[in-house]
C-alpha cells in the first residue's frame, strides 16, 4: 500500500511549489514533541498561496471531490502544477452538509463498481492521508417494512454478493438485536420485518475528509486558493485555455469542473447545457446524548436516515425538497416529515431537542448517477451530478477524475458515467424513473 509522505519530494529533490515551511507528520512522536515545545512546532495544515499565472491543471471547486482530485493528480500522476479554486472556503459546501454515511450497496453493476472502489479507498484513507478521517465501519442497515421490501432487499443483496460486495439479509429479531431502540411491534407505524446490512458501511467525519485531502494535496505542492470564484472560461483554438476569476485570469492546460451547485452555471460559460437540476437536501442533528445507536439505520421505503455522530448527536436526513433551489436552506415541512418518520421508527427520539439543521444544493442528474468525464469542448472536463450520494464517493470520485484529467480519457470504472450517455440511451438509472431529476 502507498502512504502519503509529505517528505518524499524533498527526498527526491523535486522542489515543492512555494512550500514555505516543511509539513510535520501527525504521529505519536510528534505529538509528544509538540507537547514539550509548547505546541509551537506545528505548521498550518495548508498554505494560502497567491494564484500563479498558469497551471497544468485547474480544478474548479474546493469541496471533497475537488481536493481529492488534486491530491491524486499530484500523488499518483505526478502532476504538481495543480490549482484548486474555491469561491468560498474549504469544507463550506456539500462536504460539510451531508449525513456522512458511507456504503457501497447499490443495485446496478456500474454503481457497485464505483462505490465499492470508493469504499476500498475509505478503508485505507486515514493512513494514506496521515489524517484521521474517523471512518467508522459500524454497518449500514436498510430496513424492510413489508414482504415486497424484503424481496427487493434480497434481490439487491444477491446482486451485491454476485459482485463480491458484502451484504447480509437480517431477520426482524436480528435487526432488533442490532438496534434495540427500534419499534419492533407489529402495530408500529412502519413495522420492521427484516433488513439488509452492509457491515463494511458506516460513517466518516466530513470536515476531516476535506481538511485531510487539503493538507495532503498541499504537501504535494497543490495550490489551494480560497475566496477565488471563477467568473468565466477563456477559450482559443477550439479549446479551453484558462479561467477568469475574482483574483485574476489563470491559464490552464486543462480545466476540471468539480463544483456541485455551480456545475450548470460553469458549463454555461462554455455554452454547455448539462443534464442537471439543482435541489435542496436537508439534514439535522439533535442535542448530543450518550451512545444509543451504533449503526446506520436507513429506510428507503419511508426515506429516512438515522445515525449517531461520535459527538453523540442523532443525525437525521431524508428526502430532498423536490423543487429546484440554490437557497441552501430548506422547507420546515421536510424536517417535520423526517422527524415524524424517525420517531415512528425509534420512539425514544421523541424526547430529544433538535440542535441545528442545514441544507446543501445537490446536482440532481437525469438518471440518479454522476457524470465524470470529458465534455464536447477541448480540455474541459466535468465531474457533477452526484445527486444526494456524493460524500460516500469522495475518494473514488477524486481518484477517477484525477485519472481522467491526467490521461485525457476515463478509467474503465467511470467510463459508463460519461456526459454522452443520455443521448446514447445508456443511462444508469438505479431507481428506474426516467428523465425526472427530482424523483427519488
Amino acid at each position, binding site marked *: 500500500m502507498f502512504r502519503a509522505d509529505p517528505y518524499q519530494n524533498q527526498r527526491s529533490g523535486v522542489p515543492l511549489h512555494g512550500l514555505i515551511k516543511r509539513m510535520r507528520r501527525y504521529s505519536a512522536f510528534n505529538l509528544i514533541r509538540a507537547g514539550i515545545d509548547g505546541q509551537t512546532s506545528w505548521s498550518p495544515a495548508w498554505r494560502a498561496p497567491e494564484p500563479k499565472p498558469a497551471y497544468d491543471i485547474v480544478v474548479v471547486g474546493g469541496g471533497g471531490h475537488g481536493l481529492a482530485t488534486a491530491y491524486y493528480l499530484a500523488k499518483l500522476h505526478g502532476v504538481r502544477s495543480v490549482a484548486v479554486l474555491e469561491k468560498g472556503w474549504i469544507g463550506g459546501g456539500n462536504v460539510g452538509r451531508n449525513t456522512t454515511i458511507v456504503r457501497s450497496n447499490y443495485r446496478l453493476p456500474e454503481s457497485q463498481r464505483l462505490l465499492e472502489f470508493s469504499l476500498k479507498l475509505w478503508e485505507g484513507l486515514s493512513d494514506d492521508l496521515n489524517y484521521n478521517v474517523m471512518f467508522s465501519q459500524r454497518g449500514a442497515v436498510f430496513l424492510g417494512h413489508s414482504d415486497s421490501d424484503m424481496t427487493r432487499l434480497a434481490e439487491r443483496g444477491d446482486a451485491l454478493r454476485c459482485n463480491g460486495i458484502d451484504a447480509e439479509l437480517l431477520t426482524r429479531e436480528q435487526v432488533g438485536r442490532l438496534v434495540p431502540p427500534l419499534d419492533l411491534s407489529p402495530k408500529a407505524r412502519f413495522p420492521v420485518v427484516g433488513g439488509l446490512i452492509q457491515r463494511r458501511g458506516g460513517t466518516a467525519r466530513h470536515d476531516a475528509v476535506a481538511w485531510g485531502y487539503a493538507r495532503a494535496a498541499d504537501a504535494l505542492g497543490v495550490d489551494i486558493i480560497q475566496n477565488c470564484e471563477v467568473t468565466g472560461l477563456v477559450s482559443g483554438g477550439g479549446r479551453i485555455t484558462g479561467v477568469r476569476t475574482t483574483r485574476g485570469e489563470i491559464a490552464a492546460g486543462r480545466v476540471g469542473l468539480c463544483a456541485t451547485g455551480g456545475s450548470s452555471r460553469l458549463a454555461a460559460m462554455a455554452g454547455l447545457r448539462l443534464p442537471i437540476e*439543482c435541489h435542496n437536501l436537508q439534514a439535522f442533528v439533535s442535542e448530543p446524548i450518550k451512545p444509543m445507536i451504533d449503526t446506520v439505520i436507513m429506510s428507503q421505503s419511508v426515506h429516512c436516515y438515522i445515525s449517531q455522530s461520535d459527538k453523540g448527536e442523532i443525525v437525521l436526513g431524508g428526502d430532498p425538497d423536490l423543487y429546484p433551489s440554490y437557497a441552501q436552506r430548506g422547507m420546515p415541512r421536510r424536517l417535520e416529515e423526517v422527524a415524524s418518520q424517525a420517531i415512528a421508527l425509534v420512539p425514544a427520539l421523541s424526547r430529544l431537542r433538535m440542535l441545528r439543521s442545514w441544507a446543501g444544493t445537490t446536482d440532481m442528474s437525469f438518471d440518479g448517477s454522476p457524470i465524470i468525464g470529458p465534455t464536447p469542448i477541448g480540455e474541459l472536463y466535468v465531474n457533477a451530478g452526484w445527486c444526494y450520494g456524493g460524500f460516500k464517493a469522495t475518494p473514488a470520485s477524486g481518484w477517477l477524475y484525477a485519472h481522467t484529467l491526467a490521461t485525457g480519457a476515463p478509467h474503465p470504472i467511470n467510463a459508463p458515467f460519461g456526459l454522452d450517455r443520455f443521448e446514447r440511451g445508456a443511462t444508469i438509472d438505479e431507481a428506474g424513473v426516467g428523465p425526472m431529476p427530482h424523483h427519488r
Partner: protein
Amino acid sequence: MLIACPYCGPRDLAEFTFERPIASIVAIDAPVDVAMQALFTRDNPRGPSAELWRHAYGCRAWLRMERDTATHAIADVAPYEAGA
C-alpha cells in the same frame, strides 16, 4: 410557505408539486433532438425561473409559476395554458 393558487387562494406549499421548467415541456410534434434537449437537459438557472407546478393536493390545476430559485420568492402564479 404559502402559494397563491389562482383558483383556491393562498394555500400551503405542501399542497403543490413541482413538475418541470416551462422550457422543458415537450411539444407533441417536437423533433427528436429538440425533445431530447428538453427532456434531458436544463438551463438550471440560479435566479428567476418559469416553472410548471400543480396544485396536486388541492384543485389539481396546472400552474405556471415565476419563482426565484435563489431566494424562493414567488413573483407570479397563473393558470398554465399550453402553448402560452
